[in-house]
């Protein structure tokens, strides 16, 4: 049995229009049909992948939070346990909370400092006592080979902050050695570490200032 598409009236009509190539609408219809087709195609793809992608995104966020909040100290999903506060500049700051048995055992939030080539973003994890649980660079534009040693991939420098808090070392030692502080700068690059230290310090100060709200059990 043969089936001739051209037998369908609409297709025949369309073919005729195509043949004449007249009327502005024909182009609109062609493009429209393609859009319709690909729209359906993409919408279906999206439908099919939607949940999967959301899961992956959740995993990703859990994993990255996991780097600044150890899995061992919580039994909840910090990604979903969030709180919004105003930071020093009055911007909304999203805070992830880790809980063990309902008690807040740690929080994580973004802090930022200015580096050699612009803003550097970090995720800072702080435990209930105000000690650093972990810091990771989220994004920065520092020079490869110089400033990028703040990444864990390129060095251990950023790991040294774990366990530190305001007071340990004392506030005036939260500086690079060059400025009379406790922390090493990188050879030939002082600005990046300086910005990083500032970011962590102000993050800890934020914790201190908002401690009650942060640890409040709801």
């Amino acid at each position, binding site marked *: 049995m043969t089936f001739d598409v051209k037998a369908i009236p609409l297709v025949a009509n369309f073919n005729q229009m195509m043949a004449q190539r007249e009327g502005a609408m024909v182009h609109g219809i062609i493009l429209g049909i393609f859009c319709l087709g690909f729209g359906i195609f993409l919408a279906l793809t999206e439908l099919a992948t939607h949940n999967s992608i959301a899961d992956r995104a959740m995993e990703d966020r859990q994993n990255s939070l996991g780097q600044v909040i150890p899995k061992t100290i919580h039994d909840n999903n910090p990604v979903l346990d969030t709180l919004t506060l105003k930071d020093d500049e009055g911007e909304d700051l999203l805070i992830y909370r880790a809980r063990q048995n309902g008690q807040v055992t740690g929080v994580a939030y973004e802090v930022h400092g200015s580096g050699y080539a612009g803003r550097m973003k970090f995720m800072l994890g702080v435990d209930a006592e105000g000690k650093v649980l972990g810091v990771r660079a989220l994004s920065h534009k520092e020079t490869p080979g110089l400033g990028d040693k703040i990444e864990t991939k390129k060095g251990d420098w950023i790991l040294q902050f774990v366990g530190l808090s305001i007071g340990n070392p004392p506030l005036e030692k939260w500086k690079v050695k060059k*400025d009379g502080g406790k922390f090493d700068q990188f*050879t030939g690059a002082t600005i990046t570490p*300086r910005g990083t230290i500032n970011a962590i310090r102000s993050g800890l100060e934020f914790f201190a200032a908002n401690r009650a709200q942060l640890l409040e059990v709801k």
Partner: protein
Amino acid sequence: MSQAATATISGPFAHNTNTVQRTMFTVVLALSPATLFNLYLFGWPSIFLFAVTIGACLATEAISLLLAGRPLWRTLTDGSAILTGWLLAMTLPPWAPWWIGVLGAVIAIPLSKQAFGGLGQNLFNPAMVARVALLVSFPVVMTAWIAPHPLFSDHSPSVQQSVAITFGGEMPDGVTAATALGYVKTELSRGVPVAESLTEYGRDTTLTYTPDLMDLATGYKPGSLGETSAVLILLGGLYLMRRRIITWHIPVTVLGTLFVMGTIFNLVDSSRFAPGLFHVFSGAAFLGAFFIATDYVTSPVSEKGQIIFGIGVGLLTWVIRTFAGYPEGMAFAVLLMNSVTPIIDQYTRPRLFGRTRKGEPLPIKVSP
């Protein structure tokens, strides 16, 4: 006396005595006082680096010429490769390791000059391309300025030590020092006002050497291998002007613009902006104005064009020094203005005799 039936060369049959070679070696001569002073000031390591850089420039030029199948001797002795090497060396940190000089030569000669077809064809100043490429690639090595260690003085490194410094890459501890520009810049980045850091610069005890005002003027201060002595560079520059190798247009506009920008902004906000004189007398401003921005090949040919070029170099130097990440802006400013030189050339051609600026014949004016 008989000549070929056709005389093959059209006139004129008189030429001045100037040649490319003479021009280049005059510039070398003009550079010598400042160079000798700095070689003395920074000792054997700087002498080694200087020799290596020039030698490498000559060697890479020779190799490029051989590969291109061009005549060797004449081009090699025209002095341009020596001058490029010389100027490159003068902008390097004095105790930089030998490979900095060699790599610089590879960038300056084969890449920035010979790939374009050799002398006169390049679009960017070879020495500055090399310097900037090195700075961008090796920021640590390229910003390791050292305190003066005059030859024959007590703390000058011996020849053996110097060999270790230049060829072994063993930088001794406690010799580095900040240049005034670098110092002000880093201090500013931690919020110290310029005026304060300027006075601090002379007193900062964490620096191994801090020049006083007199030192700043004579050039007894940290800096690159050839830039520290504004006075001697000025002397060389004036000699070049006298010999009509360069004209006043570029040096005066570069330094003038730098001074004017510095002064105006310093008056507006002295905590943020360094004074004009500071800009003019620190870093490579003099070297750049007299010897680098004036490079014939990469600057405009007409006097009007040179004025625009000079203002551009001064302005960009100030902008980069003041706002950008690098402490010294002269090299970048020169390269940036090199890139617009063809456009400047196109729009600053002299007016043709008997024509308007647009090229139309002038209207007829009759004598009164």
